[in-house]
């Protein structure tokens, strides 16, 4: 019999019951909650008179709506009344049901997918869910993690389980080492470019290979974060010493004897050598150049030295129309070099790229340089209050502000523009976030997804440049 994949092992360890109809009840170890997708779930509990099954499995924080500017007045200072009510509602629900919440003024507040790992609330071998598609991030720890809808948030609150069907196993193997200046973001964008935004539909993607093993936990989180942009709800990476070193000593991580027991158990959280995958994609790491999206879907991505595609050279009618529509929305001409795309704003942040390593990489590029005069704004939004504090301790805030970038309070911010940080109509933005959909960062806004180092280089140049050459200049 063939061995098991990591996903198979995680699934088997959490299957409470297989039902006659082929579906399974899967136990959930951790649920992360935020203000946008939870209010209707709490309301559902109240209406049905149900109590949460296991309160300590939940951890909440507001992130999507919170302002990234001055927070002196707390929740009451949120200008948009609709946003304010949503954040207040989370506070009230967590109080009513006794759920731990890192409130807006708590230093531990931040983006759910940053604070879970940061607190050790995400552990190897767990099942982790959240009403947010980027929950795939936590798979970087050898956890089975995926986004769910609000009805499922309520289902997990009420039963500590989900009704699931097993996904297929897909392996994305990134062979060899990436070149200097190439990050987890470039790897995952290159993968999406190769397999498409539906390439992982119905699958759990395991990322493996030397280039993945050589990534830090921050880099691995970036890769798993964007598994959903390849259509896979789940991205997962096997546990190794890098994982264990990251988790050790975090507030929610086990201590003493329990730590030793946990580490012993975590050694098995990798695919067996003879495990069977339904789909396998191999990529040569050395071929990956800095990536930039030019269109309105993450699969519309190219190396920075390329030119924008020409629909005339595309045969498939649906694809051709998609490219034409994207070029029109993005205000780009076929065949123009990507390096000639002029930028209006730069955003460094989001659950994809707002951790300390991301900020260090961006700071290294802008250090001693100035943001281009043609730019309207360049924002740096740390992923949590603790990331912010650490960056300030390292003097990164000063590097950014000296270069002319704005240093903000933590939250989702301009990734989806639910707060005041947004693009104006027609504006081009180099963004370290995860989605370049139409209107995602603001009505009529034009998003280009890049790594933090590429965003920083673009902020200085005012247009896209190859960061590998830029840092030499």
């Amino acid at each position: 019999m063939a061995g098991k994949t990591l996903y198979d092992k995680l699934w088997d360890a959490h299957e409470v019951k297989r039902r006659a109809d082929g579906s399974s009840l899967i136990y959930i170890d951790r649920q992360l909650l935020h203000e946008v997708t939870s209010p209707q779930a709490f309301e559902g509990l109240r209406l049905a008179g149900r109590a949460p099954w296991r309160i300590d499995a939940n951890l909440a924080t507001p992130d999507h709506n919170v302002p990234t500017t001055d927070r002196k007045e707390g929740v009451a200072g949120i200008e948009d009344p609709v946003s304010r009510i949503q954040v207040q509602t989370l506070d009230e629900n967590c109080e009513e049901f006794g759920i731990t919440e890192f409130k807006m003024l708590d230093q531990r507040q931040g983006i759910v997918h940053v604070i879970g790992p940061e607190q050790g609330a995400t552990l190897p071998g767990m099942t982790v869910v959240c009403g947010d598609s980027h929950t795939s991030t936590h798979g970087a720890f050898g956890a089975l993690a995926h986004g769910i809808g609000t009805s499922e948030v309520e289902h997990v609150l009420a039963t500590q389980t989900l009704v699931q069907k097993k996904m297929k196993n897909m392996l994305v193997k990134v062979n060899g080492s990436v070149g200097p200046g190439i990050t987890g973001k470039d790897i995952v964008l290159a993968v999406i470019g190769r397999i498409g935004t539906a390439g992982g539909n119905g699958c759990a993607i395991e990322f493996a290979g030397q280039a993945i093993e050589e990534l830090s936990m921050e880099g691995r989180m970036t890769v798993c974060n964007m598994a959903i942009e390849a259509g896979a709800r789940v991205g997962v990476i096997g546990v190794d010493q890098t994982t264990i070193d990251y988790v050790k000593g975090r507030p929610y991580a086990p201590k003493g004897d329990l730590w030793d027991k946990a580490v012993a158990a975590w050694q098995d959280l990798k695919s067996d050598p003879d495990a069977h995958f339904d789909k396998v994609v191999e990529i040569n790491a050395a071929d990956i150049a800095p990536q930039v999206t030019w269109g309105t879907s993450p699969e519309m991505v190219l190396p920075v030295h390329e030119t924008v595609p020409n629909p005339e050279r595309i045969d498939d009618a649906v694809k051709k129309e998609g490219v034409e529509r994207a070029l029109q929305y993005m205000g780009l001409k076929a065949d123009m070099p990507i390096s000639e795309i002029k930028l209006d704003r730069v955003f460094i942040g989001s659950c994809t790229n707002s951790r300390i390593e991301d900020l260090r990489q961006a700071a290294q590029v802008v250090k001693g340089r100035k943001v281009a005069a043609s730019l309207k704004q360049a924002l740096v939004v740390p992923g949590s209050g603790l990331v912010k504090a650490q960056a300030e301790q390292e003097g990164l805030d000063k590097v950014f502000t000296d270069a002319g970038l704005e240093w903000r309070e933590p939250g989702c911010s301009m990734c989806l523009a639910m707060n005041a940080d947004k693009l104006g109509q027609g504006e081009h933005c180099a963004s370290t976030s995860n989605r370049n959909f139409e209107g995602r960062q603001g009505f009529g806004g034009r998003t280009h997804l890049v790594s933090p180092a590429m965003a920083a280089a673009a902020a200085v140049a005012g247009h896209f440049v190859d960061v590998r050459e830029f840092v030499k200049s």
Partner: protein
Amino acid sequence: MKQFTSMNGLVAPLDRANVDTDMIIPKQFLKSIKRTGFGKNLFDELRYMDEGQPDQDCDNRPLNPDFVLNQARYQGASVLLARQNFGCGSSREHAPWALDDFGFRSVIAPSFADIFFNNCFKNGLLPIVLTESEVDQLFSEVEASEGYALAIDLEQQTVTTPGGDVFTFEVDAFRKHCLLNGLDDIGVTLEDADAIRSYEEERRKAAPWLFA
């Protein structure tokens, strides 16, 4: 949950691949703490010429005349015909809430994004996967004939065209059962409360750090 058994409904064609949930319901409307009222902002950026705001009266907003749902012949549509990878992106359940609130009962496409697909079933909205060629046929028929309606039968798992073509589709047994009977799946799961408790006990012994 709302029941779904069978229906016969006017079809609106949305001829575009990779329609994401940001497009179905833009983020400014996710600030609501209710499950209802999203229909007027369904496809907001495609439907209106201006930028929509939460709680805005949409009756006087400028409509995009080219958008399919604004065309007279598709008023009252309850079946949305779409292209591949419909519902990709964010997990927001506001997307099926908006489709439902607008009046759609079913979405037909060659493929769906996983989370959206799952969310539909929780809201009495039936997502149907047909083959590329079947969907192509439906697109050409709906565009050629005003008042084009499809009959959908969940029990039989069939879509029947006005011309009498019958296409069959797959659906998970559990989801079908819940939809046909309008079941609350939390209630169904809680029938297994003992199994959940005994799993928890075993797990607590095997991996106590998960319960610390």
